[in-house]
């Protein structure tokens, strides 16, 4: 990982920062208010999935941008979180929020287990070992089978299927989309607090140089483990949101290949920017939905995906978010006439 400037931690003019944050907050509020009304039902459901996957992508980019660690198991953790959220909801009839949190916590525990080998490995070996774990999770999920609507904790349905209950606040698709966006904002908030706080500084130091971090008294093991746990938690929340969106999850929908795809598209979206996970979520769900809307053969969509991914990897290391920021900076330069202080 080269000396990438982390977008969160550049020294900038505080007024500009406050202005930017206000604008961002306004845009987010506008999106939450307006978007559900404007979208058709097809796109509403697509965007619900995209939002959930944006949280999943956030979990990947957290590990990658903060610690330079590649985890190819995040989609599997998403599945684990979704599984537990479904089971708690079916088995004990608890409110959606509790099921969601439980899914997140259990996935965090699994994330911890995935992260333990990371204490000794980095780079390609870490990626491979997480991929192997994703494979193991895939087998576990499909052998155990997703709860398919039966009563009780492990119940498999023998008659009509029970769907996962939506939150009391958000029974309709429109309301659920708003709910999902709020959860996404909260997840961003959690990550932001971490990055700006002590963990973020510790992670930055570990990333730059573990020797220095050790010398500086940073507890490397604890912070690495914490990163994996947090990213597991985020993945679990994403899984729970997905489960609530559709009402059920399919056991074969969490293969290891999806974890690789999630990582790949997070890089394409831009792991170092806050925009990246949102772009990744849109690409994972909104782009195929767009192609399907125009009745483009699904295989063509796969080809386009692969070609786009290759192109991105070759030409845009900072991802699409980086490209967008470059364009924005160039425009700002042109209009403001200043040189250099673009951000």
């Amino acid at each position, binding site marked *: 990982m080269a000396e990438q400037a982390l977008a969160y931690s550049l020294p900038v003019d505080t007024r500009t920062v406050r202005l930017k944050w206000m604008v961002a907050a306004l845009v987010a509020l506008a999106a939450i208010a307006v978007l559900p009304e404007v979208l058709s039902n097809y796109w509403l459901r697509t965007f619900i999935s995209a939002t959930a996957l944006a949280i999943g992508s956030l979990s990947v980019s957290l590990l990658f941008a903060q610690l330079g660690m590649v985890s190819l198991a995040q989609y599997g953790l998403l599945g684990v979180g979704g599984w537990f959220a479904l089971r708690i909801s079916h088995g004990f009839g608890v409110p959606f929020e509790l099921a969601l949190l439980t899914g997140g916590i259990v996935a965090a525990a699994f994330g911890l287990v995935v992260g333990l080998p990371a204490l000794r490995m980095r780079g390609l070996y870490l990626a491979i070992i997480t991929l192997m774990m994703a494979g193991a999770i895939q087998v576990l999920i499909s052998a155990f089978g997703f709860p398919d609507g039966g009563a009780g904790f492990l119940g498999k349905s023998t008659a009509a299927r029970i769907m996962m209950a939506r939150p009391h606040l958000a029974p309709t*698709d429109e309301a659920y989309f708003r709910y999902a966006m709020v959860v996404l904002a909260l997840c961003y908030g959690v990550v932001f607090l971490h990055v700006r706080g002590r963990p973020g500084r510790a992670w930055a130091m570990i990333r730059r140089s573990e020797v220095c971090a050790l010398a500086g008294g940073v507890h490397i093991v604890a912070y690495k483990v914490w990163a994996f746990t947090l990213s597991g938690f985020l993945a679990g929340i994403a899984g729970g949101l997905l489960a609530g969106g559709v*009402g059920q999850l399919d056991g074969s929908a969490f293969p290891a290949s999806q974890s690789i795809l999630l990582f790949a598209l997070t890089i394409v979206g831009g792991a170092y920017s806050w925009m990246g996970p949102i772009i990744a979520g849109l690409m994972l769900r909104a782009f195929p939905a767009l192609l399907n809307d125009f009745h483009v053969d699904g295989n063509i969509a796969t080809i386009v995906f692969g070609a786009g991914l290759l192109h991105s990897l070759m030409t845009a290391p900072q991802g699409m978010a980086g490209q967008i920021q470059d364009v924005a900076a160039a425009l700002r330069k042109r209009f403001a006439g200043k040189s250099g202080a673009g951000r």
Partner: protein
Amino acid sequence: MRWKSALLTLAAVTIAAGMSVGHAHADTAKCGLSNGKTAAGDPIIIGGIVSVTGPDNFSSSGLAAAAYFKCLNANGGINGRPVKYVLEDDAWNPEQSSQLAAKLIRDQGAVALVGNMSFVDCGANQGIYEKEDIMVIAGVGVPRDCFFQKNYAPTNAGPRVSNTKAIMDLARTYPDKIKRVVCIAPNIPNVGEWSCTGAVSWIKTKGGDGKIITFDPGSLDATSIVLEAMAFKPDAISVGTPKGLAVPIFAAAEEQGLADKVHWTGPASLYNLDFPHAIGKYWDGKVTVDMELKAADGNTPDMNNWLAVMDQYGQKSDPRDTFSQAGYLAARVTAETLLKIDPAKIDRKSVTAALRSVKKFESDILCAPWYVGDGPRHNANHTGPVAQVKGGKLVSKGECIDAQDPELDDLHAYEKTIGISH
């Protein structure tokens, strides 16, 4: 040219050639009012969800329904109103399936869904189907959910009924020889184990014993599955898997030379024109396959009409298999039901009520009358013949068998009340 379409064209031509002398599909297709007038009124929107991209291409049912509706529109439509049939691909993905259901039902205002054929649709969309009270006259249902919903009525029989009939036929053909049965299925919980339980329950009522073997579809080791099955020392083995997964299992069985040691059979998922060629000459005369509907070369009026509809209004590449028959039947029953409604009052509510009141739909493609009814679940088709792999083709044995699965008892009771007996 795509190899696949070449192969299927060849298969379609073979069927046409194999049919009796000089008959049938030269006739004009008859649909709905059959008056030859192009319908030009206010379109009625009907949707369909199939699974095309992915582990297998499950779309023949939707394609057949599309052909039928084209034929209908060329023959007066629904009392002058054409049907706009919107067919969508959910790529085996439940999220995508739920998006498409919202699109068809809420965005486009479909009054019914016809010709569905998807592994994930039944489970993912049960909520929206019941909430919007829209009827789905599916071509083909596979998972258990498709047969346990208030708003979903498939014209096919389903893998559970199919496996049961396959074993029943073997027991009939070899009396007193079939005592131990193994049923192999993929480990998807609401498909695999459920689809085999019927056959095993039935053999147990006859004093035999059965074993269900579920396996991971991603597994690459068909030989172990076959060995596990043989360890039970069965008399019959039903390979209750989609055709793509069945071919390696039959290949592994061939490798072990098991065709003469055990009787082999499979459900209607294996009833596909490519299947005999794929498993090869070794299995000639050694495998039976259950059919949910009658054989395509039966040369009966409705059967020929289906082929005529496919020839005149379908594509050359559309498969003419049992699922295509199911899609045709689904479209036909929907069209005939809609024709009975006042054309000005066709909306979702009236269509749902009319479809629920279908109590006796007959066709020579079916072995018994089909119905929808207002019960909590629908599995009206549980009678059909069985075919044998012979000479590179699937040849029907002729006799209709009624599945004696204990799980169907509630349906048998309902059928008595509406006057259908077998």
